[in-house]
């Protein structure tokens, strides 16, 4: 602030201030002083000191240092200065494309036929390595399967239950209330079966990854040969969408891997789309109802908002439109 003023101006401003305060008392004399002060400060001498004074030097230096510090604080590095990084953009993974999911729009529910096919893909392919421990058989009822179908699916699985009267654990067929069985008894077994890499639980995977459904779809369909110069260790696979590029999960989906009961051709991308829709449902089972309630809430609240505006205007109209007129008292005494 101070630095913007030349020193000469600073000096004369004292005189200006003083003359201002005495303006009413000293009348014409100080008024002429003020005029001289302004002509003096716009003379070339004042400009000279703006560029040569120490105050300007110090303040410009401080300003530059400050903006550099602020810029680097905000953006991490300075522009127009070459930098060398040890990591490449590939380390962050390729950004997935944006896909027109059937449940993407504000009013769109899941495509439940796709959820059903996706469950089939999960059960026949992914369940060999990935658990889905937040989903119970009963959750499928009314979403992708009838109660009878879900009961039959559950009965195919043996669960350990107990203890019984003799204190023994026993095996029994699954019930609707049982959760989907994990492929491995514990994390160590899962790692041991997958070359040290842990296949993550898929219940919330769509919420747990940047890019969500688009990312998992791209990951499942994005396996390619590594580009020249990229070394992939034994047992790893190259996938440009996976951060770092090397993923322990191999490509699993190949055309015709499963046979859909509704006759949909089981291409790679069809299976990936279905399983991702299923996983998206597993992560957000409330999506259908949430959007429906959201629609109702938005309609109701905008109506109430409009009403409240109307009431406000109604109440304020007399206040805003009134005119206050000053009627000077008729002074009869004088």
């Amino acid at each position, binding site marked *: 602030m101070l630095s913007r003023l030349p020193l000469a101006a600073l000096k004369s401003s004292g005189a200006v201030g003083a003359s201002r305060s005495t303006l009413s008392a000293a009348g014409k004399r100080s008024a002429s002083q003020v005029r001289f002060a302004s002509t003096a400060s716009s003379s070339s001498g004042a400009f000279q000191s703006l560029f040569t004074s120490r105050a300007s030097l110090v303040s410009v230096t401080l300003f530059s240092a400050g903006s550099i510090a602020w810029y680097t604080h905000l953006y991490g590095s300075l522009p127009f200065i070459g930098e060398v990084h040890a990591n490449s953009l590939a380390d962050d993974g390729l950004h997935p494309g944006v896909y027109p999911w059937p449940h993407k729009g504000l009013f769109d529910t899941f495509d439940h036929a796709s959820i059903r096919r996706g469950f089939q893909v999960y059960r026949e392919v992914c369940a060999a390595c990935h658990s889905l421990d937040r989903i119970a058989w009963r959750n499928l009822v*009314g979403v992708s399967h009838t109660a*009878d179908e879900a009961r039959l699916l559950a009965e195919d699985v043996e669960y350990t239950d107990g203890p019984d009267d003799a204190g023994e654990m026993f095996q029994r067929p699954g019930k609707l209330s049982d959760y989907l069985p994990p492929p491995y008894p514990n994390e160590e077994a899962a790692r041991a079966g997958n070359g040290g890499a842990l296949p993550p639980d898929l219940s919330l995977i769509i919420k747990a990854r940047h890019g969500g459904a688009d990312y998992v779809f791209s990951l499942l369909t994005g396996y390619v040969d590594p580009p020249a110069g990229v070394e992939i260790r034994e047992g790893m696979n190259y996938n440009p969408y996976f951060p770092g590029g090397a993923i322990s999960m191999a490509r699993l989906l190949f055309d015709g891997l499963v046979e859909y009961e509704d006759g949909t051709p089981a291409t790679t991308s069809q299976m990936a789309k279905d399983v991702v829709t299923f996983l998206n449902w597993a992560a957000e089972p409330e999506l259908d109802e949430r959007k429906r309630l959201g629609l109702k809430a938005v309609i109701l609240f905008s109506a109430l908002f409009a009403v409240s505006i109307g009431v406000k205007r109604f109440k304020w109209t007399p206040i805003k439109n009134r005119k206050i007129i000053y009627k000077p008292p008729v002074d009869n005494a004088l």
Partner: protein
Amino acid sequence: MLGNTFYNSIVKRNSVYVSTIFLGAFTFGVGFDVAVSSFWDRWNQGKQWKDIRDKYVQDADS
């Protein structure tokens, strides 16, 4: 005129006034839900479980 009829037929007796509000809320609730649902089901035709359910039910079970 309209305001008078409204006042005389509804607002005058508190019992009528309160039951009108309750009944109105109830019928509006039902009507609003029916309207939103019918738009909803038309928009999402063929995608919801109820649209594909009859392909899979055997008897009168859910």
